């Protein structure tokens, strides 16, 4: 029987995978997906806590986070398309006009 701790560990692992993906992957779309993984890991945390506390607040919060994630993905994809039109590349190392 999985307990709250199991869910928290799972979501922490997912969050860590997302974080690692943002730093390590060399494709812009994969980086966007990694951010989505991070947000969904947080969603899992919310649902797990909500269940453990016996309240529906956690699930309601997830609705809002999903909306935010969709809006963020839309804006992110739009920016990636503009970038791609200038550079014809999805490798972030090609984007070197500004120094980091």
């Amino acid at each position: 029987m999985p307990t709250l701790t199991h869910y928290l560990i799972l979501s922490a692992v997912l969050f860590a995978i997302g974080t690692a993906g943002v730093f390590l992957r060399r494709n812009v779309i994969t980086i966007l997906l990694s951010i989505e993984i991070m947000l969904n890991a947080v969603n899992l945390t919310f649902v797990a806590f909500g269940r453990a506390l016996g309240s529906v607040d956690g699930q309601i919060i997830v609705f809002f986070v999903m909306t935010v994630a969709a809006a963020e993905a839309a804006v992110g994809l739009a920016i990636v398309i503009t970038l791609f039109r200038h550079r014809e590349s999805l490798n972030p190392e090609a984007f070197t006009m500004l120094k980091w």
Partner: protein
Amino acid sequence: MIAVGIAFAVTMLGLSSLLGPRKPTPEKLAPYECGMPPVGDARERQSVKFYLVAMIFLLFDIEVAFLYPWAMALRDLGWAGYVQVLLFMLLLLAGYVYVWRKGVLDWGAEST
């Protein structure tokens, strides 16, 4: 039960790969694409239109997520809830009108 199922599947797959005849032809080795012979490069450039429509779908798709809970609590929320959902839909409608007028939904050949 699970063990029997797995054993059965493994046996059948193993037998068919051992006993089945094997005559590879180029058509058989090509990746299966709905029965048609594959045409062109799979990495063909798509029109930006596709991305735009995907993005807009993403946004208008999520709005339904808010309508389900409202529909479940329709009677409890009463007119106040109705007005709030109406306002929510009106705001989205404004976005829809904007997208429409900006020509994102035009698929005709004359649009660029």
